[in-house]
């Protein structure tokens, strides 16, 4: 697809060394936390609509359209790159060359990639054949937390910068820039070494560039929200600080 748009910034934030957990490896610690979050994406995009010529008068109009999960899946299904990837890589019996209806997105907080999946077991990393990720800035995190020393129960709210990027390699791009990302964590009481942990997120990247059918547009609003939970082994014992607090201090 020919486009005047510069290539996407593939360089993401590197995770600083001080984010490596001291007492356990990062992988084992994160396994106890929800890392795959169900994701809802909604955006409004302004695109050129109709250009009419009446004699010497040319009239151009703009149209605001809505984008949600279903729109993104429709885009991906129309993308030859995605069709080819599914055909050649997905061997699931229910899949031919497109994402089935009822599929949904999950965000992998560890890799920052967005996956598509459904209840039939079909799943793949969309960021592999095309571009689909949410980047968060671990260098700048502020937050508040309240955690009971004895039970480990509590809650935490962290705010950081988030960026979203979607490109179906078929003329459709959503590229809002860094904006606010709110991460709300809830920690249950540790019982028998097991702790219920949930997270809900609300991401509001700043409106910026978009392309629809190869034509430039602008995202006017952009929101993503999601949640996930896990009831795994309490990762640090009941006296430890919450994840984000500890990871950033």
């Amino acid at each position, binding site marked *: 697809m020919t486009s005047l748009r510069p290539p996407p910034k593939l360089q993401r934030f590197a995770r600083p060394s001080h984010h490596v957990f001291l007492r356990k490896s990062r992988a084992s610690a994160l396994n106890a936390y929800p890392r795959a979050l169900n994701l809802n994406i909604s955006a409004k995009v302004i695109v050129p609509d109709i250009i009419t010529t009446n004699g010497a008068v040319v009239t151009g109009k703009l149209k605001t359209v809505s984008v949600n999960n279903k729109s993104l899946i429709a885009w991906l299904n129309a993308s030859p790159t995605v069709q080819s990837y599914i055909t050649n890589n997905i061997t699931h019996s229910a899949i031919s060359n497109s994402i089935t209806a009822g599929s949904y997105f999950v965000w992998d907080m560890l890799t920052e990639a967005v996956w598509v999946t459904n209840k039939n077991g079909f799943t793949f990393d969309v960021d592999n054949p095309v571009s689909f990720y949410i980047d968060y800035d671990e260098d700048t995190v502020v937050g508040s937390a309240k955690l009971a020393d004895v039970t480990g129960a509590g809650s935490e709210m962290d705010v950081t910068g988030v960026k979203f990027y979607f490109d179906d390699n078929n003329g459709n791009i959503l590229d809002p820039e860094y904006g606010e990302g709110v991460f709300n964590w809830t920690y*249950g009481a540790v019982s028998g070494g097991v702790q219920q942990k949930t997270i809900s997120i609300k991401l509001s990247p700043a409106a910026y560039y978009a392309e629809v059918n190869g034509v430039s547009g602008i995202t006017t609003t952009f929101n993503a929200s999601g949640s996930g939970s896990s009831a795994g082994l309490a990762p640090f014992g009941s006296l430890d600080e919450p994840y984000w607090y500890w990871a950033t201090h």
Partner: protein
Amino acid sequence: MRPKVVIALLLPILLFLGMVLLFKQHAANASKPAEVAPAPAITSVAPTPTPAPAPVVVKKTVTPEEREVAINAEKDRLFEWEMNDDPESLSKILGDLTHAEKEIRLAAIEATKQFGSKDAIPTLKELVKNTDDTEEQAALLEAADFLSLTPMSDSSVQLPRTPEQIQAEQQKIAKAEARKQARMQKRAGNQDSQSAAGQNSTAGSGQ
């Protein structure tokens, strides 16, 4: 005794007894509260009546963890319903717009956006009146506005481009690029001529 004497003696006695009876009746009426309009003072000092004992209901206290699990379970259900296209799923989503838990109500508002049906708009607008929570009001109105837009997945927006259209688009981009280059060259030429003129005038003024 003569009858006159007897009457004279009994009459004062009967009068006295009559007066005593009248006095007693009056005293009894005064101490009894009026039945039609009881005095407020008496009502206010009366002891609070003991309420009838309520039937014993064994109610399980929900722990914060159980509440969180229940909320997440309902949010997961909303997540499934929103990806469907059937009226039943929409009905369930709209039902959760009035859930007791605010977190679920907000998730249901988001679910209406993902479900993408304009049929949800009247309900969303109607519910704005039922809450004083400005965050919820804003979310309801934003969702109604979102659903009123043309969805990107609409066939009028998401038409597959023909090879001719793609070629035309590429030609358009190439032409725009050529015009841009021409403008840049013209601008550069103008700047060169202006700077040359400026140098000449500077040189002239210096002489």
